[in-house]
């Protein structure tokens, strides 16, 4: 019997899997840290223009976001490649902006309703016509504080 046993022990020993959970946790932590949390899934291209004379945006609960830009590649066959407005998770037209801002404002706490800022996150390639239309709509609903959200950089990067 002992002869057989000797043969068996010549096989490779089992690899310990005790460290597997650690590896998994490590990956988990990495992705947790590397991921930027977003409230909205962007359906548009959104390369912000660069500027250096900037001010920090207010706290998140005091900001209403409006996105605009060309639909991203996978939405282009459905929505075309003309710049569009995105509110929350949906494409919208200029006429929806006013109602959206009013609805957002109503959903905020009362003491914040007068200090809201509207952040325009617009792709650099967009034409000003669309932005002027948005601004007109904002004026109509009296949302006068706006912020052109930019990334930090010199204006020469905007070419």
């Amino acid at each position: 019997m002992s002869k057989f046993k000797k043969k068996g022990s010549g096989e490779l020993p089992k690899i310990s899997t005790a460290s597997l959970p650690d590896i998994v946790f490590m990956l988990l932590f990495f992705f947790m840290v590397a991921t930027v949390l977003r409230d909205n899934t962007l359906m548009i291209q959104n390369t912000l223009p660069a500027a250096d004379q900037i001010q920090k945006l207010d706290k998140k609960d005091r900001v209403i976001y409006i996105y605009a830009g060309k639909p991203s590649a996978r939405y282009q066959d459905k929505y075309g490649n003309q710049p569009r407005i995105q509110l929350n998770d949906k494409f919208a037209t200029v006429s929806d902006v006013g109602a959206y801002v009013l609805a957002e404002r109503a959903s905020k706490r009362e003491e914040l309703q007068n200090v809201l800022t509207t952040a325009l996150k617009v792709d650099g390639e967009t034409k000003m016509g669309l932005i002027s239309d948005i601004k007109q709509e904002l004026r109509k609903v009296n949302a006068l504080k706006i912020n052109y959200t930019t990334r930090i950089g010199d204006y020469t990067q905007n070419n």
Partner: protein
Amino acid sequence: MGRRSAPEVNAGSMADIAFLLLIFFLVTTTIETDSGINRKLPPMEEIIDPPIIKERNIFTVVVNKNNQILVEEKLMEIRSLRSEAVAFLDNGGGLAEEACDYCQGSRDRSSSDNPDKAIISLKNDRETDYKVYISVQNELVAAYNELRNREFLRLYPQENMDYVQADRKYTDPRTDKKVKEKLREKLSVIKLMYPMKLSEAEPNKTS
């Protein structure tokens, strides 16, 4: 027999390595806060009786549909826009009660009277690119900031910072209330010296 099989690797330190990595990523990542150029839109009410503004007090900047910049009807490169705007705002060409004692400009009679009267008018076309518009906005804001920085450093050298830094400190929620109060006074003095009068006309339709 026991010597033949490989000894089990001690996995006890694995957790330490994982935590080390976790802490490394925690420390090196910064949570992004958005920043940008703040603007106030004019209210919707129609102005019935618009004030009469002298031509020399208006600095017109037009961005046309080909993204060219026209300052006072002359074509200009964007890199000279800032210095032109500074020269206009800081001109101080006014006489008597309209004089500006802190301006360091050329006191040209055909340019602005004083910073309070000086208005920058920005007009763009519907076909202008947003990024060009932002660049122009950025340069005009930079012109104001340049002048405000200069005056802040001149009037409050003990603060040891310029206007932009002071403003950033003022808006920082971590700043002490007392410090904020003091800063606000100083900031508003500077703002009065160089008020930001940036008027935006509604864009032209491309013909």
